[in-house]
């Protein structure tokens, strides 16, 4: 990719008119078609639900790596899987990511499967992040390494990102009056990913239920796992298309909704749903002034006429 950029810049600097036009058109073509390359070398994680044994090591490692608050129970206390989590009479029963933990493992007893299945939840680091596109202060950014990171210094706390995230990932520090912020998994970007190292959860995972690598490699690996063990896996890679594709990918032995995945997440980026309105905006801004001034001139024809007769200088 870097070569591409340099080439393009060289073209421009070279001052060859034809080359400029060509590169412009090329860029325009690919972008107009919506074919963005999504940082082809960006990293991801393949989560294999068949491998996870629910040891909660990832939760512990994440807590330590990110310096998150002390948990309610030790991470080797497995009673949390059977806890019901009512939020003062309301709220969902299943455990989810909160402002105290970026990642959570949940247990699912699926009928027909003789052992429980476990599913890890954290930010999926979308290729076209909905949180990013919904943020009116650009607090989010997608790094070339693949992480979706958040900048608390500009965040206003409007929580639209939480509305927009199709995976219900970002959480907000509701308990803080003066320093609230969004809390969500950042792929260990600052401490690890930037240097090419896997996030803490991947590194600690004993079962290698989490495989770290280039997203393109992971997709290939996932496909080959499905191909070589068709009885073991459902033929679907969750995250390949969901929400326009995510850096974190999942393989499951059972239908994904049985292990807590939202299978209704649209298979296109969230921005596609907002695009229609966004394209209307400049049209309204640019057409309305002349249109309504025109209406005014038309509907006040009589006034204008009499005024014209009196003195054509006054408007």
């Amino acid at each position: 990719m870097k070569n591409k950029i340099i080439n393009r810049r060289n073209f421009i600097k070279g001052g060859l008119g034809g080359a400029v036009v060509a590169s412009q058109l090329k860029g325009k073509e690919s972008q107009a078609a919506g074919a963005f390359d999504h940082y082809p070398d960006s990293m991801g994680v393949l989560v294999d639900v068949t491998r996870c044994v629910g040891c909660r090591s990832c939760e512990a490692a994440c807590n330590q790596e990110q310096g998150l608050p002390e948990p309610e129970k030790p991470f080797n206390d497995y009673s949390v899987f059977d806890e019901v989590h009512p939020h003062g009479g309301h709220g969902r029963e299943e455990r989810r990511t909160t402002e105290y933990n970026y990642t959570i493992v949940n247990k699912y007893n699926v009928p027909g499967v003789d052992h429980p299945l476990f599913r890890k939840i954290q930010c999926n680091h979308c290729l076209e992040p909905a949180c990013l596109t919904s943020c009116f202060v650009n607090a989010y950014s997608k790094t070339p390494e693949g992480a979706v990171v958040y900048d608390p210094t500009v965040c206003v706390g409007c929580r639209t990102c939480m509305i927009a995230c199709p995976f219900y990932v970002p959480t907000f520090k509701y308990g803080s009056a003066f320093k609230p912020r969004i809390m969500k998994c950042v792929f260990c970007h600052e401490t690890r990913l930037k240097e090419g190292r896997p996030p803490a959860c991947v590194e600690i995972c004993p079962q290698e239920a989490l495989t770290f690598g280039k997203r393109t490699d992971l997709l290939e690996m996932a496909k080959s796992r499905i191909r070589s063990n068709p009885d073991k896996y459902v033929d679907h890679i969750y995250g390949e298309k969901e929400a326009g594709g995510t850096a974190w990918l999942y393989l499951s032995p059972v239908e994904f909704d049985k292990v807590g995945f939202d299978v209704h997440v649209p298979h296109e980026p969230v921005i596609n749903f907002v695009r229609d309105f966004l394209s209307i905006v400049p049209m309204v801004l640019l057409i309305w002034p002349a249109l309504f001034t025109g209406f005014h001139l038309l509907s006040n024809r009589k006034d204008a006429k009499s005024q014209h007769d009196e003195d054509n200088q006054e408007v």
Partner: protein
Amino acid sequence: MKLFTNNKQEVPIVDHCKPDGSKWSITEKLLLGLSFQDYKKQFFRNPFNWAFIIIFLIGTPILIERYLFGLGTVTHSSSDYPWGLFLGFGLFGMVPLSASGFMLGTTVELFGRKDFHPIERLALLNGLLGYFFAVLFLMVDLGMPWRLPYPMFVSLGPAAVLFLVAWHVATYLSVQVAEVLPSFFEWLGWLKGKRAIRSMVLGLTVSGIILSTLHQGALGALFTYAPGKLHPLWLSANFQWIHFFCSSIFGGLCMVIVVSTLIKKFMAWRCDDHFLETLDNLSLGLAKGATLAMITYIVIKFVAIAHDKEWAYLLTGWGQYYLLEITVAVVLPLILCVWAIRNDNATVVRFAALIVVLGIIWNRLNTALICYNWHLYQEIPHWKEVAITVLVYSSYIITYRFILYRLPIVYEWKGEK
């Protein structure tokens, strides 16, 4: 208020000059020509004020609690339901009811329908206050309200719908302030300022239309971020913005009818004869406009269902709830309005307008709260959240009343204009 209605000679100020020819001072104008003692007396005689006092006594400590200990202590907002009553009611509910400003501004200033002039200022004020208090609700809900100017000057995210909302609210609020200023300048006696605003009136009105279109629309478009979360019947990715815009048209018009009715009932002493005499006809006129928007709205709501091929949802419980909303909040008042307009019955129009106003709030609450996360669970707002909402809304009513008592909104200024 009894003081005003009982003693006719103490009819409040409508002129710069007292009956004896000397000028009213600003303090006297603020106290409506009463002594401080008399003003206090009439204040405590009003039972509404006692209700407000109780609301403030309960609400203020809770509001302080919210700013000292965080949103978590007073709301049930959560990771699943980031937005609660403050935005669901305060922002999404109040803004469409404030579309009146641009509607009547357009009618009178742009299309030159001077016959709507008596109610124009009320509509403009209604718009201004609605938006202003929607922003206050936002300030209660924002995690870091002190960073409100960030999207404008510090870190810009122009692809976000909320970016548009922020800019449009900010600019439209300024436009509306400018639109209401002439009545303030009349009251103050600063005619130069009024003339300056009058010279810009066309520009202000056109900006008003642009900003309203986009702003009402943008509030709807905010929900297109949640295609998997909001029930499909309440969400149309393509038409959501126009649904919100269209419903705000009849919402705003009906809000003016409701407010003017309340003014006629409780504040008749403040209105001049012209306002009182024309009000019935004007209400019918406004309702006529509203019915056009309502019938359009019903059709485009169903076009949206056709567009997304969601007919099957109508057979579910959610579908029945949806049909109930449409029937009660739009179809019923539409029928009432049509009958009333044909029979010149302002009373029925007013009743229908009340249904519409409540219906708009119902629709926005449905969209923002009730049908949001429809496949998860239902959230019930914290009682403290309700208390703060009532508190802010009470401040809205009090401010509204305060201005109506004084500025020439529902009466003509008798002094020089």
